């Protein structure tokens, strides 16, 4: 039987952990968006000097496990003199990881832009930076919002790895409560529902944003995200 008394007793602690999870995800998400935008823009440039480092960065991130990246930042970097708290390490690892994926989304969005937009801007005398800020990026972000939201939902799930650095987020807290109460079903069931709830909210948001363009009554309609660019 489900032990409701136990669940309600630990619920405040779970919510605190959920808040920690969202904090890690939101902070990493903001940094990842900045990294992804800058790297995405660089990756559309023609110069090899720009493209090669970007290729190494995204290639490295995509081809190695996030858990190892997390360990590397937290336990590897101190060798070079960079000492980080668990929280800082997690934010850095998640930002770099998510940033690499976002950069490819941004690059795709930039590539899909009509060349006429930047030509019209330049002909009006706008600088490169103004053209990006006022004309190109607003259109790109509108277009890539659904895949960005879905990337963010992966990021939220990925933050569970922060448990290995003893950050009191949802997964770590669940493990702690399970060990304390010997009730693994409830202890891991509650966070599962919480992760699912966030995912559902994001999926609905994404569906709302991408409008009613994609009709269909399948489960994908509710649980899948809108079409990627």
């Amino acid at each position, binding site marked *: 039987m489900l032990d409701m008394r136990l669940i309600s007793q630990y619920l405040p602690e779970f919510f605190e952990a959920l808040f920690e999870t969202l904090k890690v995800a939101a902070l990493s998400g903001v940094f990842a968006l900045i990294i992804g935008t800058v790297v995405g823009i660089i990756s559309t440039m023609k110069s090899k000097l720009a493209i090669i480092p970007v290729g190494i960065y995204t290639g490295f991130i995509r081809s190695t496990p996030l858990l190892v990246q997390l360990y590397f930042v937290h336990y590897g970097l101190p060798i070079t003199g960079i000492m980080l708290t668990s929280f800082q390490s997690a934010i850095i690892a998640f930002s770099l990881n998510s940033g690499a994926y976002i950069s490819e989304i941004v690059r795709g969005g930039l590539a899909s832009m009509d060349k*006429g937009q930047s030509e*019209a801007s330049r*002909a*009006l*005398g*706008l600088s490169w930076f103004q053209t990006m800020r*006022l004309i190109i990026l607003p*259109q790109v972000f509108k277009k890539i919002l659904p895949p960005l939201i879905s990337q963010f939902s992966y990021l939220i799930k990925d933050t569970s790895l922060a448990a290995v650095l003893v950050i009191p987020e949802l997964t770590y807290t669940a493990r702690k409560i399970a060990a304390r109460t010997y009730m693994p079903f409830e202890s891991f069931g509650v966070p599962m529902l919480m992760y699912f709830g966030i995912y559902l909210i994001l999926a609905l948001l994404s569906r709302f944003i991408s409008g009613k363009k994609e009709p269909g009554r399948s489960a994908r309609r509710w649980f899948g995200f809108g079409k990627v660019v």
Partner: protein
Amino acid sequence: MERVVRIRGLHKSFGKLHVLKNIDLDVYESDVLVLCGPSGAGKSTLLRCINMLEHYHEGTIDVLGKDIKSSRANLSYVRKNSGMVFQHFNLFPHISVMDNVALAPIHVKKIPKDQAYEKAKGLLDQVGLSAKYDAYPGQLSGGQKQRVAIARALAMDPKLMLFDEPTSALDPEMIKEVLDVMIKLALGGMTMIIVSHEMGFAREVANKIGFLDDGKIIELTPKNEFFTNPRSERTKEFLSKIL
């Protein structure tokens, strides 16, 4: 009269394709120059070199007395003081018609917002779009879009307007509304370079007509002479096809 554009010995290639071959061209204040010629002759490329949307390899282009290649400041001066209208409009779809027109004055010329919007309204009235201030480009017809594009270019108070086939993406019934706006501009003394196949329009407003073929200006003559007494065989051939 003041010279607005001076081109000497211009060459431009795309890879191995030699597109512009030793172009010389002078355009003076209040000139309305219509450039015509067969597809692939290099008309668009020539026009786009004038505000350096295309980089060129050889030759010099002075616009408004400034060599556009010699410094960034010169190029930026020329872009601020010239307007361009494209075949496919290239309006900014994410902002309103008013914002399209006011954007460059606000961000490039740093004009106060309320002044820029006042001016945008005036220009939109002038091109017959008083009812569309708050519309988005996606809600307009092709002819309306092109008129917004003209207003957008005029908002910078250009001393030179460049048009690249401004009516060739339009349905026939919308061509006139755009040409009418251009005629008004020409009559107002605007210096214009227009790539166009609208020979009727050229007859009405151009004072000079240039004929390009295979990357060369074959003929550049006052309008009347062009139609009545073309110098080269190529021009005669071309005219017989399109008139």
